[in-house]
């Protein structure tokens, strides 16, 4: 399968005062188009850092990251921002909706950066909210929604621009079992029906089972031996 995301010998070192903290120590991995990849590992293993690098919200200290044929690790901040707007959908553990905007307006946010007309934006937002089953909650504010519903709004926001890749950082980490299951089902639906490439970080083995592949990280390195094909849920 063609690698949509190609990571070559990526290292990431954070500087904390006078100390250097190596987080990724030479990762090489490919993520094929249409993949649903779960990144697992203990705290501090570097999985969120790797996700951030794939999403273009951080840059590697060394090595290269190529997404859909473009080496994003060479982009400057401005170019990365506009690249993210077109190619990446984000799902966070705590949903991170803007509390002063309702569901419709939250989902519309990424579209404000496009040249779509107001009418076209409305159509896209309505379609995204209908996909996540919140067509009837468009004008509810985050405080008027349950955690599961908030995460579904966040998923709608992530897919509304039809991104190349969706990155999800512990998307079920703050949800109860029922809502976590619904969220994972939704991600699988996006992967299988809409062929979205998804990279998800999770601590939860049950959540990881929804992915097509699982990669384990430890101390900034891939543990090749445990790369596996997830079982069908």
């Amino acid at each position, binding site marked *: 399968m063609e690698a949509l995301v190609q990571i070559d010998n990526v290292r990431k070192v954070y500087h904390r005062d006078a100390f250097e903290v190596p987080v990724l120590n030479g990762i090489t991995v490919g993520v094929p188009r249409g993949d649903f990849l779960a990144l697992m590992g203990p705290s501090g293993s570097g999985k*969120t850092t790797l996700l*951030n690098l794939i*999403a273009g*919200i*951080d840059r590697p200290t060394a090595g290269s990251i190529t997404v859909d044929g473009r080496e994003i690790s060479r982009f400057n*901040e*401005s170019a990365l*921002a*506009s690249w*993210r*707007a*077109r190619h*990446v959908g*984000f799902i*966070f*553990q*705590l949903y*991170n909706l*803007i*509390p*002063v*905007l309702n569901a419709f*307006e939250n989902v519309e*946010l*990424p579209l*404000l*950066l496009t040249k779509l007309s*107001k009418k076209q934006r409305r159509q896209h937002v309505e379609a995204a909210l209908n996909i996540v089953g919140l067509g009837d909650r468009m004008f509810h504010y985050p405080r008027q929604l349950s955690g599961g519903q908030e995460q579904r709004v966040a998923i709608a*926001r992530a897919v509304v621009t039809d991104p190349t890749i969706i990155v999800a*950082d*512990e998307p079920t980490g703050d949800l109860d079992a029922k809502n976590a299951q619904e969220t994972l089902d939704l991600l699988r639906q996006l992967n299988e029906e809409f062929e979205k490439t998804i990279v998800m970080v999770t601590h939860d083995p049950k959540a990881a089972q929804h992915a097509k592949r699982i990669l384990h990280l430890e101390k900034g390195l891939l543990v090749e031996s445990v790369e596996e094909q997830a079982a069908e849920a």
Partner: protein
Amino acid sequence: MKYAKLIRRNLFRNKLRSFLMIVLMGAIFFLIASLIQILDAFDNFSTGGAGDRLVVQSAFSLATMLPYAHEEKLRRVPGVVEVGKSQWLGGYYKERRNTFAILTLDADKVNALFPELNIDAGQLADFARDRQGALVGADLMSRFHWKIGDRITLHREIFPFDPELNIRAVTHNATLGSALYLHQDYFNEALKWNRVGTFWVKVAHINDMPAISQQIDAAFKNSEDPTETFTEKEFNRQFVNMMGNVKLLFGTISLCSIFMIVLLAAITMSMAARERVTEVAVLKAIGFGRGLILGLMLTEFVITTLIGWVVGVGGAALLYRFGDMAKYTMGFLPNLRIAPATAAICAAAAIFVGLVAGGLPSMKSANLRVVDGLRKVV
């Protein structure tokens, strides 16, 4: 603008804080606009007056009165067209809070010396005929609900004299709207001093005024009552100077106010920005660029200060337009208004405050690394 909704919602996300901030801004812009207008009123006073009049006062001080006998000598100075007497009395109507300008003048010389008073000929004739007649500014008439023919008694402030007057004429002159004039003869008959505070001298040619001034002062130099002659503008300016360096004081208060507002706004705006670190990180993650974040936040902060400007300057404009300013200012600033230039200066100050106070928190937000912002909660 497609970002308007986002800006608007963020403006009032913390309603109490926004309300207090806007009230504070409003109060300070009200103060600044008012100070500017009061200074402007002083400037107008000190630069006002006709260009062809000289004012002769005692060389010792304005409080020292000159003898009536000076009038004839003044009249004989070449180039002098008319001479009239005038005395500042001071005083009030009924209660001390009803203090206003009360002066005497020679009733038969009003038109010759002060044509700008623009008085109805019939009323002026009535005023001149009645020794106890009063010529009253239109604002005073309105303030005390007086009408022509009313009899009023004023109370002394300086001299042992409580004038009993009949209102005979009204002047609609804008700068003299809160003044009342009575006959110099009535005043003098009561006190029998045959002395007066100032002589007002009208000259034939403006260019001759410096020479005439010198001739007048030279004529009385060796008398018991030497004179000092001013142009009317110089004379008026004395009163502003008597108040000390009011301009410096008011200017300092205005600058302190702006400095204070910048600090307070900076604190509030920093708090507002810090509360939204994660949200800014999310916006940046989904593609909002540095410039866009900076623009959105600065726009939000400038709008906040501009709302404060609307409240403060608009409130002042409405108060001065519809309030009884003659009453509130005890007759000193009956025509206080917020001029468009003042409103524009305050608007510029509001934008300045928004940009300066909001600049640092906006820059910090714009420069925020997405991973640092998300790390707060993720």
